[in-house]
């Protein structure tokens, strides 16, 4: 685009101001020619090259910073996503571990242990009754109690829940909570799983990633100013200054997010 403008032949007087010419950069050169005109033309070329370089530098910086910010935001997003997925996997693992312990306790241990409890209470009641009776009735009660005792001897030793004093309750029951805790603590890694902490870490990273994308907007505006500075030569200095200010703000915002968030 600028090549068309830059192609103004030296020595041609342009009968239009930059404003009249809609800001298109022109290079008015004196009609007298000679050394003075040549020097002015040379100075104008130098100034134009310098301001063009400013446009190029601003556009380049905006692109580079946008790329850096984008890469960092993407990396943070990826980390946040990883954390959330880890939280999900941890949740599944934690629930599987807890359910396995519960199944072991309530499906494998509790049914026979309850049979043991019932048999134990029956034996105690039968012996209590036998103590208050005499003769054949007492013998019957004692035989029944002996049967229950044999059953207990056969099966109770297999189940720690039924035999360990730590689990015994005063009313003849067993402490299922204590037993579940002991079963769970056989796999402490599963008990220690904390998906909520992973979720919170993911949320923090996600918030940082979202905040890191925000500086892209001032960087885009800086690119807009840089692009506009090219055709609007009359306002180029102001546009470049505004673009630089917005670019600096975007860069500082990105640094602040990186450091503080």
């Amino acid at each position, binding site marked *: *685009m600028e090549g*068309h*403008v830059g192609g103004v032949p030296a020595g*041609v007087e*342009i*009968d*239009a101001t930059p404003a009249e*010419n*809609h*800001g*298109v950069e*022109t290079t008015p050169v004196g009609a007298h020619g000679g050394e003075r005109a040549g020097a002015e033309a040379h100075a104008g070329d130098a100034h134009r090259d310098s301001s063009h370089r400013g446009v190029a530098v601003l556009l380049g910086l905006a692109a580079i910073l946008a790329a850096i910010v*984008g890469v960092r935001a993407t990396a943070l*997003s990826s980390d946040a*996503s990883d954390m*959330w997925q880890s*939280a*999900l996997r941890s*949740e*599944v693992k*934690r*629930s599987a571990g*807890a*359910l396995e312990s*519960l199944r072991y306790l*309530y499906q494998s241990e509790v049914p026979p242990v*309850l049979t043991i*409890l*019932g048999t134990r*209470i*029956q034996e105690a*009641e*039968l012996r*209590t*009754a036998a103590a208050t009776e005499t003769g*054949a*009735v007492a013998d*019957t*009660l004692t035989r*029944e109690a002996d049967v229950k005792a044999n059953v207990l001897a056969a099966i109770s030793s297999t189940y720690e829940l039924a035999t360990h004093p730590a689990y015994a*309750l005063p*009313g*003849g*029951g067993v402490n*299922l*909570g204590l037993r*579940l*805790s002991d079963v*769970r603590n056989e796999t402490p890694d599963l*008990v220690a799983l904390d998906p909520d902490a992973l*979720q919170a870490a993911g*949320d923090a990273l*996600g918030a940082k990633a979202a905040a890191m*994308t925000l500086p892209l*907007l001032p960087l*885009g505006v800086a*690119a*807009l100013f840089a*692009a*506009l500075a090219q055709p609007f030569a009359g306002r180029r200095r102001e546009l470049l200054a505004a673009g630089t200010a917005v670019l600096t703000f975007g860069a500082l915002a990105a640094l602040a997010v990186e450091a503080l968030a």
Partner: protein
Amino acid sequence: MIEPEVATRWRSQGAFDRTATLLIGTVAVLAALLAILQATNGLASTRAQAQAARLSADAAAKISASMLVQGATLGSQQGALVLGMEAVSALIVATTSGDAGLYAVGTANQAASGKLTAALTESAATSSAAPVDPYAAGLMSASIDQLNAQVTEQNRQVDLANETGARSQRAVLGLSLLTLAGVLAGIAAVLGRGRAGWATLGVGWVTTGVVIGVTLLTVL
């Protein structure tokens, strides 16, 4: 003095340059805006999906755990009731047959049934009590109301994931169209201010207009 037609050509070139660079600048700003929208909505969608899956897993675990505990508790209570009913049966048979020994056994078993029920109640009261870890206790003690609330929240997360996912896709669509607009702006710059250049620039602006619409749809 330059020829009027030359000045007109330069003015035309200036308008073309301004239009083209304004398009490029607009593309840059829209790209930044859409990148932000895509990133934030993509993050929100990913989080909502993971959260919905977590809630599903947790609800399933709570249902399984509470069913296990309730099933075992009911089963044991039924066992105590059966013992009591057997004792009553023995008492009836002993009464009709005059069997004092059987009657004494029935009486003892009836008392045992009552004590067993009390022992089971005592045991069940410790199911989710200390020292059970809070997570396992929560699984066992989940109520229907809690599960319903959790399912409602899970559904909300699914809806949120779908909504933000759709917004993220719209942002990607906008970015794709924006790439096209950027390419058109570049081609127009190469073609210059001729008819082809203006036409390309026009298509670029139309595409950018569509992108602005897509951006508004993504935001709203």
